């Protein structure tokens, strides 16, 4: 038997449910792994060793039947630290929340617990999920397990790195413009952003409410299916969660028309990335699928629209961090002074930049030109996808134009950082499901292939990607955390 920390969630659960291994052993193996490697990687903001071991012993007390009935029984799970938990602090990667302990658990936390998962810790992120590198965490940057001089991507960089480094088999991330898929791509793991409304946002600290979705980050597609199966579903606490929907049954036809959007395969793509993607496309053809060039003509406007809508909503969502009720409060001065100093000291530069941008976009006299225009672009982008999915079953693209960059390389150039989201933001703007799966390595760094599907084709998307996973070379071990 291989090391427990090297197994995926699916295998761990099977072994645990069959009585072959104990949950305590599973948790200990992963805690040891965290102990050994997280000082190098910095994936975690909080590790609840004691709580996880206590939970493991609880799981061990269940009968085999009861273990089998709960699909994540015995599986350690890490949460991006913008998902609130009652028994672990939640920071959103920001100083402004201070020593905040949520009075309630997020809906996904309840669902994970009901399914028998063992929460092991909270992972690092760009402050309030704003960023693509996890360098904007107020605490420390996270490093890429494939090359510790490089970023893991972001904002769910902690979750991606923790999964890639085998510190945990499964982590949840959140994706507002690519924050699950881009770090999954950079770290060589699977990351899925479900259809908007498919997973409850209750308890996810809001960045941009109309774009945010929670999703799984795993090392295999079957694990993503397993976790997605547990966390999705309508939630009476979330009015935007979809109710009474049945996921469409995809055609049993195993040969699909797969769309390759012209706008995603143009200049600006790294050569190494292109080579890996081309190989993956060949594999798809080898499976009998038909590749067709399509057009998503409004893609060029997506970044601009995204960087108006997301900051606008963020500027509003982050207003509650005012020092009055919880979190950090600067002392001295009058009320206005308290507000200003608290927010000045509590927020980092990237958050301030976006709050300013968003506040401006919503201001009297600018609203029509910025926010409303961006919403119109959003409609066009949705229509682009509607049209495309009339003729193709799925769309496949590179997840990012490049591989993981070196820490600090883009810190002084927010625009360049924003442009890195070019392939991922459209799925959020259109509300459709997307996932990134590892397709291979370019110069020793992982390259992600992105799959996009029509709304509600979440399960179908996982199945489709899995057919490719079966024929691709398995990913080697990440360089930095081999031993």
């Amino acid at each position: 038997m291989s090391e427990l920390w090297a197994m995926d969630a699916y295998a761990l659960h099977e072994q645990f449910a069959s009585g072959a291994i104990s949950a305590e052993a599973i948790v200990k193996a992963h805690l040891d792994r965290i102990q050994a490697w997280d000082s190098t990687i910095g994936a975690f903001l909080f590790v609840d060793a004691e709580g996880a071991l206590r939970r493991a012993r609880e799981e061990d007390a269940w009968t085999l039947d009861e273990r089998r009935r709960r699909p994540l029984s015995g599986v350690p799970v890490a949460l991006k630290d913008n998902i609130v938990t009652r028994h672990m602090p939640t920071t959103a990667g920001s100083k402004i929340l201070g020593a905040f302990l949520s009075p309630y658990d997020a809906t996904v936390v309840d669902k994970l617990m009901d399914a028998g998962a063992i929460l092991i810790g909270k992972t690092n992120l760009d402050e309030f999920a704003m960023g693509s590198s996890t360098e904007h965490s107020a605490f420390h940057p996270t490093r890429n397990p494939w090359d510790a001089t490089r970023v893991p991507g972001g904002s769910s960089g902690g979750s991606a790195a923790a999964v890639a480094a085998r510190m945990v088999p499964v982590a949840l991330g959140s994706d507002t413009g690519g924050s699950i898929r881009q770090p999954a791509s950079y770290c060589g793991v699977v990351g899925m952003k479900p259809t908007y409304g498919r997973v409850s946002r209750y308890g996810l600290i809001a960045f941009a409410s109309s774009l945010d979705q929670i999703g799984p980050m795993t090392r295999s597609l079957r694990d993503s299916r397993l976790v997605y199966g547990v966390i999705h579903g309508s939630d009476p606490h979330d009015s935007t969660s979809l109710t009474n929907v049945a996921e469409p049954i995809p055609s049993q036809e195993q040969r699909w028309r797969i769309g390759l959007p012209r706008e995603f395969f143009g200049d600006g793509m790294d050569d190494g990335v292109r080579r890996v993607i081309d190989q993956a496309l060949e594999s798809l053809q080898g499976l009998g699928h038909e590749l067709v060039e399509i057009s998503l003509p409004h893609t060029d406007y997506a970044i601009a629209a995204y960087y108006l809508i997301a900051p606008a909503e963020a500027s509003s969502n982050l207003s509650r961090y005012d020092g009055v009720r919880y979190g950090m409060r600067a002392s001295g001065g009058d009320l206005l002074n308290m507000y200003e100093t608290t927010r000045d000291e509590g927020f980092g530069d990237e958050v301030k930049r976006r709050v300013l941008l968003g506040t401006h976009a919503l201001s009297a006299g600018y609203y029509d030109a910025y926010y409303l225009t961006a919403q119109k672009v959003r409609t066009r982008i949705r229509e682009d996808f509607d049209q495309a999915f009339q003729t193709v079953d799925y769309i496949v693209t590179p997840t990012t134009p490049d591989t993981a960059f070196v820490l600090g390389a883009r810190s002084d150039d927010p625009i360049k950082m924003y442009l890195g989201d070019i392939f991922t933001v459209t799925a959020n703007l259109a509300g459709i499901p997307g996932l990134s799966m590892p397709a291979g390595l370019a110069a020793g760094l992982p390259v992600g292939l992105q799959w996009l599907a029509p709304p509600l084709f979440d399960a179908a998307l996982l199945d489709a990607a899995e057919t490719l996973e079966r024929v691709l070379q398995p990913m080697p071990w990440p360089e930095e955390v081999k031993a």
Partner: protein
Amino acid sequence: MSRDYEVIVGLEVHVELKTATKLFCGCEAAFGADPNSHTCPVCLGMPGVLPVLNREAIHLAVRSALALNCEVRPFSKFDRKQYFYPDLPKAYQISQFDEPLAEYGWVTIRPASGEGRRIGIRRIHVEEDAGKLNHLGQRLGDATGSLVDLNRAGVPLIEIVSEPDLRSAEEARLYLTELRAILSYLDVSDLRMEEGSMRCDANVSLRPVGYEGALEDLSRVEIKNVNSIRNVQRGIEYEVERQAEMLLRGERIVKETRGFDDATGRTYSQRSKEEANDYRYFPEPDLPPLVLSAEWIESVRQALPALPDAIREALVSRGIPPKDAEVLVLDREAYQYWLQATERFEDDRLVTNWMLSDVARLINARGESYAKAAVGPDGLVELLELIGSGKISGRMAKEVLEAMFETGKRAEEVVKEKGMSQITDEGAIRSIVEEVLKQHPAVIQDYLSGKEKALAFLVGQVMKQTRGQAKPDLVNQLLKDVIHHDYNTAQ
């Protein structure tokens, strides 16, 4: 002062809806609990929370809108109104901006002089209330700190915005009185201005005669948060006078927000509108648009209760004088008292007279209301029945009613205990009558010579002898009979 301007008033009325729970969470919406005891992560604005719309609040809002003759939009949406203040946990209020729940309604007011007049309602929208700040110290200026109570945060409100159709403080009073009456029949709110469950802001401007521009361009003064209808009227009266004097002196009226000082009856400047907030409204992404089907709206309309205009008509057609009808209509509890009493007692006018004189006087004196009066409609009816059957006189009944209020006992019981019962035995009264007449021969002569008053004196004497228990019309009759029979011939 010469009248070379016209008064332009528009009112914004906030009404707290009487739902069991708040607008976006499951917390109790009731007034008066310990500070912050009616709160949860959602209404505290904790990280990660989301609003869930209370459908009952929408039901009450739609009832109100329909009763105020509004068109209810089949599609409306919620927006965030953003500003920082410690009583606003999310730093935005979920409200409705450009697509409100309802529009284009009206309320009819009836000025004492002249015809009824329709006052337009521009819009009605749904929003959440803010919390409350309790400042430590005597006044805000020297407060040493402030305590935040978020019990009220998230309580559902409707804001009813009138057109600037009101032309005087008196019309504003009539509008508010009628609005409150209509809402009271719908039972959608407690409507207590002193507790803040109904609040009013008044926009006041003066339009010089001959002015042809848009009303919006006139300098408008907003009087904020006045705590009674009477004070809204006073505030507008003061403001009209103040602005008129400024115009006379050739001064420019500044667009501003003013408070009202109850003690002095004056308004005072709070902040000028030039420094007003940009609320940066945008559509609330956490809530889907509110879609209401025509069938559902129609079913709400069908279930509306009788409203003041219909009730007025019904009362007048039952012979109630319009003035009395008005008093009953404007107090829903009085009207319900009246309805219950008249259901059991056939003389509507007698019920009305008793209610609006003696019952009203006793209720007021005792600080009660019609709904909680010590003597309810059944008690009043029992009293009226005793009069009707001749057991007691009207005069005795007044004393009985007072005792009923005092002791909570039923009319019959009071009558028995007091040994009151009207003497209807003709023989007994006749002997007293004969006795009295013997003692006042001169008065008899006065009567016979045509002085009607003399008879009243004699009746009084008989009543005195019987301690008020003789049936007055019988006494009257007997006196006349005996005088004509025994004394007329002696003349």
